[in-house]
């Protein structure tokens, strides 16, 4: 069973601060996805990283996939209250029609005004 460990589990910061959350595994994934989930809603895909060492930027969010494709990080610059939510990472392994996502438990981020 492939497991994804996310840290920290909870994070509360002030608006304007920077933060990094982590997603680690002992298994290799063919790709890794980051989602944000707000209360009462389903997860929304932010980014997919595929290549080891890949860095992707989405406005103030920077995503990195580890060289060995076992870990990833999400860095947020100058956090805003709208960034509040549950950040989930999910790893996948290509398996033809049996493509499966394994989710971590998430990091619950609260950005205070």
């Amino acid at each position, binding site marked *: 069973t492939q497991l994804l460990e996310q840290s920290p589990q909870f994070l509360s910061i002030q608006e304007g601060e920077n933060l990094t959350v982590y997603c680690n595994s002992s298994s290799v994934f063919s790709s890794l996805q980051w989602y944000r989930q707000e209360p009462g809603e*389903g997860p*929304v895909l932010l980014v997919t990283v595929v290549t080891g060492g890949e860095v992707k930027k989405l406005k103030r969010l920077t995503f990195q996939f580890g060289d060995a494709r076992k870990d990833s990080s999400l860095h947020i610059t100058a956090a805003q209250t709208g960034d509040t939510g549950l950040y989930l990472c999910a790893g*996948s392994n*290509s398996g033809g029609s049996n*493509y499966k996502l394994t*989710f971590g438990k998430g990091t619950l981020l609260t950005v205070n005004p």
Partner: protein
Amino acid sequence: EAGVAQSPRYKIIEKRQSVAFWCNPISGHATLYWYQQILGQGPKLLIQFQNNGVVDDSQLPKDRFSAERLKGVDSTLKIQPAKLEDSAVYLCASSPRPNQPQHFGDGTRLSIL
């Protein structure tokens, strides 16, 4: 495009009762997923359909859970009889093909008394 539709949004039942959830995926999406998200955890895949066939139901508790997607479009997930540990949010997701990004509905929050 319209998103993934789920109903009901909330359901409260007593243990040992039965309950059913409905999902209408995005039009044209051949792959449909049901996930269980227990409070404080990430989504866990219960079952994956490709059109009207089951691809993966390895984590579905088949003694009490069942799911169908008879015409390859809408899907229903049923629990009979419900147990206290089934309290969770049940998320439906769809994608055009198995290795394409998944789009999630807002889920059904189930509470077992």
